[in-house]
């Protein structure tokens, strides 16, 4: 039982991550997907920061007392995951910005930001191309046949 109490904090990060992942998969709206991706990443951040916690710890910032000397104030939380997550947060906001730029472009070009509608439009494009190709092919074949007959 103590084990569960000891690690339940890690489970909440899993929960947050999975809420995000569910959003990414289940929501057809692209903005929702981008936001959900952010949630997903925050879950990971929570994991890293939980990793840094130490019993009875305090912020890993030494207090300066006079003449630049520093006072030790009991165990400090681990600064390493903090540093890593600072980097990761920056990365996640960059990804969000690029995703939003892409979404705006998609809205401009497709007129919608629902993934299923876009998918349908892409399929329609493909079908149109295919049919156009078939028509051109048929016309070419007919032309060749005509030319052949002409030569004969």
């Amino acid at each position, binding site marked *: 039982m103590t084990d569960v109490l000891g690690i339940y904090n890690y489970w909440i990060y899993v929960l947050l991550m999975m809420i995000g992942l569910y959003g*990414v998969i289940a929501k057809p709206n692209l903005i929702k997907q*981008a936001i959900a*991706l952010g949630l997903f990443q925050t879950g*990971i951040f929570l994991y*890293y920061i939980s990793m840094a916690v130490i019993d009875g710890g305090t912020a890993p910032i030494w207090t300066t007392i006079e003449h630049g000397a520093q006072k030790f104030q009991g165990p400090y939380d681990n600064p390493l*995951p903090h540093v890593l997550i600072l980097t990761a947060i920056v990365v996640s906001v*960059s990804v969000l910005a*690029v995703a939003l730029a892409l979404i705006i472009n998609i809205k401009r*070009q497709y007129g919608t930001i629902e993934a299923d509608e876009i998918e349908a439009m892409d399929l329609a494009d493909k079908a149109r191309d295919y049919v156009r190709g078939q028509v051109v092919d048929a016309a070419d074949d007919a032309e060749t046949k005509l030319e052949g007959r002409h030569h004969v």
Partner: protein
Amino acid sequence: MFEIEANLPVLVVTVPLIGGILTILMGRGKGPWAWATLITGVVFYFTWRLMQAVLASKTGMISYELGNWPRQWGIEYRVDALNAFILLTVAGVSFVTTLYAQKSVEKEIPQDRHNFFYAVWVLAVCGLLGITVTGDAFNVYVLLEISSLTVYALIAMGKDINRQALTASLRYLILGSVGASFILLGIGYLMMVTGTLNMQDIHDRLVAMPDAVHNRTVLVAFAFLLVGLGMKMALFPLHMWLPRAYTFAPSAVSALLSATATKVGVYMAFRFLFTIFGVGFSFVAMPAHIVLSACACTGILVTGVTAVRQTNLKRLLAYSSVGQLGYIVAGFALANVHGVAGSVVHIFNHAVMKGGMFMAAGAIMYRVGRCDLRAIRGLGKRMPLTMAAFVLGGLGLVGFPLTAGFISKWYLVQGALQAPHMWPVAAVVLVGSLLAVAYTWRVVEAAYFQEPEGESATVTEAPLSMVAPMWILIGASIYFGINATFTGEISMRAAKSLLGGAP
């Protein structure tokens, strides 16, 4: 004071970083392109020097501690035969691709943002090189994100030709970010049990752990890293983002990506499986070889069949890339010297061949405006050099003797026959070659045995600035097919050091 020789590992990354940023200032016209070419050229030179240095060093390994912090605390750059070879490949292909890019980019990207475009381009190269050179697990994640972000932007620049570039890019962004997050999570789990981020240090700690194989945290870390890496290197069935991305990206970008991006993904897999976890953990205790070779073999067959059914040349090449990646993965999954060597040498060979073929597709795109099978009818006569390059590249994919592809397949088959119960891999390699014959033949048939029509009837050969780089790569693929001493030796050396445990 300052010696180039002592700082080579870091120069390889910082030169394109600083150069990439300065690209913004290069104004309009040809300035940005020339600058980008210069930078990638310099980087290529440095990677060549680095290769020489690695080969000359006694330990076969060069370590560079950034900021002079001891490697266990700071960040370390660690170059061995494998890195050096991949670095050389990536830098070389990027240099040639940059040479090639000028005309194609001029046509496909709006003129007023060429400086930004090339800045992103050079930064993408910087990120890819950075992943390859680093020996720190978290540094991999950061550089992975640089290369991914730049690649998303580069792919999306195809939007002016086909709007699907945007959806392709966004889909890649979402899948790629999820994959990168899995990698981050895997690194976090490893850090939890080992308390360090340096790859070698993690490895030592895992080895010291008597029961790592049964440690649930390590197992989950392994699984998530595998999935994340699979997404990044587009291993079947996690390849869903790749075909669209390569099809709709600007031609030059497709050439760059196909030759470098997934290769670096494979390299990461090498590092994580062999250096961090170690052969004993990954392939003896864990069934990674079964999972990976099953994925790879299915991938080779499925994407081969799919490629045969494609009508768009770039999409065909994209599917073929997923299949070729299968060979690379199947090779190192064998975990014996020949298999791994085949895998390493195929990274190089495939980069060269596929780069050249995408360039050919780009040249067709440049002249004809599209690149489906209908558009290339009769181009064998109108664009002889381009089509010949394409066909020679295709022969390489098939594994025709005297091409580079033959060398890698030779190693692979040898490795597969040496490994116990792995002969199906050899069979799949052969079937895959037949499929490659099929899709290459479709192109040959259209280009040489059909009459040109429509706009294809009037086109002329692509400009020299496109044909020359294309032929450099295709020529390299022929050269290294005939004389494989260099590539073969290096990859054998890389394979031995990987399998020998310590890199």
